[in-house]
């Protein structure tokens, strides 16, 4: 396993995941191996090639602007870990 050049803790913070020291060390080496393989792509001549975001050539599909039923609030909230007054409850975000 290679030594990591990726700042795993920084990237984990961007992804909003806490990692243990053991995970930081383990993932660092594994990601280094994976990135080394990925470097292979630098061999490919991509001059003038358009990117494919997905496999079908579809864009801006629209449907008729007609209201259709969707889940009632109860359906959306039935799995919420914390809720009050038909809304999701989270820790305080802004101080008064």
């Amino acid at each position, binding site marked *: 396993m290679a030594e990591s050049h990726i700042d795993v803790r920084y990237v984990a913070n961007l992804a909003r995941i806490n990692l243990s020291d053991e995970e930081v060390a383990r993932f660092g080496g594994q990601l280094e191996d994976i990135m080394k393989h990925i470097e292979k*792509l630098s061999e490919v001549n991509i001059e003038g090639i358009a990117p494919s975001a997905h496999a079908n050539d*579809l864009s801006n599909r629209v449907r008729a602007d007609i209201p259709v039923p969707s889940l009632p609030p109860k359906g959306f909230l039935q799995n919420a870990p914390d809720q009050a007054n038909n809304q999701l409850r989270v820790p305080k975000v802004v101080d008064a």
Partner: protein
Amino acid sequence: MSLAASSLSSLRRQLTSGKISARDIVEDVIAQISSRDGDIGAFLSHNGEAALAAAEKADLSLPLGGLPIGIKDNINVEGHPCTCASKFLKDSYTSPYDATAITKLKAAGAIPFGKTNLDEFAMGSSTENSGLQTTQNPAAPGHIPGGSSGGSAAAVAARLIPAALGSDTGGSIRQPASHCGVVGLKPSYGRISRYGLVAFGSSLDQIGPLTHTVEDSALLLNALAGGDPRDSTSLNDPVPDYTEGLDSGVSGMKLGLPKEYFADGLCPKIRERIESTAKKLESQGAEIVEISLPHTEYAVATYYIIAPAEASSNLSRFDGVRYGNRTENPEDMLALYTDSREAGFGSEVKRRIILGTYVLSSGYYDAYYLRAQKVRTLIRRDFQEAFEKVDAILTPVAPETAPKMGSASGDPLKHYLADIYTISANLAGNCGISVPLEPIDGLPVGLQILGPHLGEKKILRCARAVEAG
């Protein structure tokens, strides 16, 4: 043969002739699971009472009337858990709605039955990444069933249920089908709505069937295919009858063997099996030609940028606010996110989210993600050019038969490299099917047949010829 062990088409005949009832089938499925699934571990949950109630009301005049179908546990079925085999969702999530694929199954008369195990959030090729339980390969205990739809493949292979749905982002239907000895179909991107399938790689994911026979695969595709206003990537192209013409054989078909798929790294016995199958198809009137898919060697690198990038974005919804795991008494909003995600996700999921976040992060986007999207264009072109010359492509599904459990733990890259034969079809959006060949040293092995976009009829017809021998 028990009812749970039968094909959908044979059950259908017995049901319509009045020999058996839908209740008989569901009762047998429940009995098989309770007596044998303890050793296999295919199902994460099932609700026998609800299925029996549905069987009582089954409309046998419908194409799948009264037939129970296992469902991979990343597809929402109203009123059932949907764990994605993750601790994040275990015991804390009940689906408030049906995925479109489930709505369509129900409309065709089928009974969604139970939720099957998978690699957590479908990330993996062995089902060993399940955060909840281990699944054995029914054909070879001690070996992996493949993955990520390992629970669905094992459930069908162990004859616990006649058929099941899986999802395929990089081979997750075809590879477990090959390892367990069943038929697994990944339809073309957009053929089946993804609404209600928990998103992993949105530009790659497709739902598809795992079955005993090619005919059953076609029967399920008939029910599942079609456009859906709730999935703007689904295709409105007409849905043909996929069972029609299944037995018309391969005479006049042109079948390609891509030279890059038979290079170093492929088990020689698998190569022999495929070559002898190709010879047999040739003797039945097919023309076999060598073709080239020159960008094959870049597929794994391309995929392991695009799939984790999409996953890192898709899995941001698991934040401890709307559903699933929530850490106790978080200090602030940030701690709510970071601690809930740390405790809820397993190693492979964390690794892929971090990889995806890294390749999308400022300063690296062009070098990795954008470059990968361009190479993806070249991989698509390879297939477009190949399908101008041939009707379908014959390849291995995996470099070896089902490995022993634990054989690649600690080395994720080794796992990723084994996806080489299946991921290109997801990158290009093509359809592909794995159909069982003669086992090798007692272990099942499949042949992959790749078809052009919306070429399902061609690959089903070819797979049927292989199945018929």
